[in-house]
């Protein structure tokens, strides 16, 4: 079986052909689903654990500390140990909590994350869902998660959970607009909603370079709104520790808490991956116009590496936000969205349309 690290289409095609030869179409499709599901589950679990570790290390560096150092080399096994501990914890449910909704909420949150992660292209051919409304689908399914958060807050029968959930709902619903509009700006520029086409269009220059001013504005707006949508600091008032204990997941323990926790970090990954894909060229290597030798050296680095380098840089910037800025008040958050980000976004989309019409781009 041919394995090419620069192009995964032949690998996936060969797997498909091999399965179709030996099994009936129904069984082959089922096996493919299981394989894809297991791969995504493994990736999400491992990358989630890694992100928690990275967050703790980065946070420590921002506060001139060292972070976890004891469990494993450089504390690498710390989050695995934490996760095992979480798995062994007792599942506690508050009295008079809504049994059905209380147990349903973590699944909705994590399912929304899984749905969104499906359209992200990791490399050429390494994408499970690639269809012509990719960007639209992503914004649609990533907003499903807020239902889970609201349900968790409502069904916990706890005032702090409810306040946290309502704050989170107001915040996510508002910032959903900015995320979608800044993505729409780039859709206007790319002329396509399909992720593979968007990445392919950035072969010569990433959109943040070729789209210059409007693309940079859209990138900044997307980063701010994306940070708010993942409920991370400085927009973390949904789970403001000093005010609301832990917000909507106060009453959850054990595996259910782990699901919320994992979903939070997977959402961070999704936002960063979308930012990397739409603005920074996804898995495309860095190319500069006519520097042929430079471009060839850049081509030598595998696309998966490029993708993760970009994603990790964006994640680092978002962590930088979290550990630098103080938390906003509720009214400040809504002011920022409705009085600043939304008007800027609308003007920006007009600017981008002008840029596209006058062909004033590289």
């Amino acid at each position: 079986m041919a394995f090419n690290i620069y192009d995964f289409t032949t690998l996936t095609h060969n797997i498909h052909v091999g399965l179709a030869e030996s099994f009936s179409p129904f069984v082959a499709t089922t096996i493919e689903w299981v394989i894809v599901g297991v791969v995504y589950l493994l990736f999400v679990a491992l990358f989630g654990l890694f992100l928690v570790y990275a967050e703790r290390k980065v946070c420590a560096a921002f506060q001139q500390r060292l972070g976890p150092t004891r469990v494993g080399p450089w504390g690498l096994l710390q989050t695995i140990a934490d996760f095992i501990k979480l798995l062994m914890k007792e599942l506690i449910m508050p009295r008079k909590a809504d049994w059905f909704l209380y147990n349903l909420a973590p699944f909705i949150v994590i399912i929304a994350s899984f749905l969104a992660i499906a359209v992200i292209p990791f490399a050429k051919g390494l994408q499970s869902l690639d269809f012509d409304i990719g960007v639209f689908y992503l914004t649609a399914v990533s907003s499903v998660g807020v239902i889970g958060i609201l349900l968790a807050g409502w069904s916990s029968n706890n005032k702090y959970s409810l306040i946290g959930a309502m704050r989170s709902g107001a915040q996510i619903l508002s910032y959903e607009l900015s995320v979608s509009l800044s993505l729409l700006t780039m859709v206007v520029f790319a002329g396509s909603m399909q992720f593979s086409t968007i990445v392919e269009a950035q072969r010569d220059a990433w959109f943040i370079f070729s789209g210059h001013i409007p693309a940079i504005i859209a990138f900044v707006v997307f980063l701010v709104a994306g940070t708010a949508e993942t409920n991370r600091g400085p927009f973390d008032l949904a789970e403001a520790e000093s005010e609301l204990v832990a917000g909507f997941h106060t009453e959850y323990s054990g595996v259910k808490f782990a699901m919320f926790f994992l979903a939070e970090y997977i959402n961070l990954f999704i936002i960063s991956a979308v930012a990397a894909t739409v603005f920074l060229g996804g898995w495309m290597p860095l190319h500069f116009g006519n520097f042929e030798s430079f471009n060839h050296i850049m081509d030598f680095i595998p696309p998966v590496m490029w993708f993760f380098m970009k994603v990790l840089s964006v994640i680092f910037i978002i962590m930088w936000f979290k550990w630098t800025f103080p938390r906003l008040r509720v009214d400040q958050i809504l002011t920022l969205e409705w009085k600043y980000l939304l008007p800027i976004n609308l003007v920006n989309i007009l600017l981008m349309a002008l840029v596209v019409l006058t062909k004033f781009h590289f």
Partner: protein
Amino acid sequence: MKSFIEYITSIFKGVWTLLVGMKVTGKYVFTPWKHVTHQYPENRDTLVMFERFRGEVIMPHDANNEHKCTGCGICEINCPNGSIEIISKSIITADGKKKRAIDQHIYHLGMCTLCNLCVKACPTGAIVMGQNFEHAVWDRSKLTKVLNQPGSKISEGIKE
């Protein structure tokens, strides 16, 4: 129009202040060798406490087992919580005079707040702050120390 200009400038000002904040924290991240946190038990051999650190009261002795304490008791008077007890004795000097000298300079580390008043009050500079901070012991009585070493005497030339 004026409010519109204010709106635009407020955006740029806001972004600028955020960037200033990010510069401050970014400096911490990208200079990890300047981090203040130590890995304490591992670096015990190389750990050097800073000069003004107050770990305990000690009485330095020189090579001839001589210290500078005259047994005047000023440190005992100055100690706010009675951590120091001076037991003095009288000795007869070479020219036949009776003179007061220190017998035991008893220091209760368990009561000491490391306020530094005794060190400041000492007229001869006999006691100073040491930098050892690992004071954990199994028995409380071990926290009571005698600062002047057995057989030590006051060094020549220290006037009361």
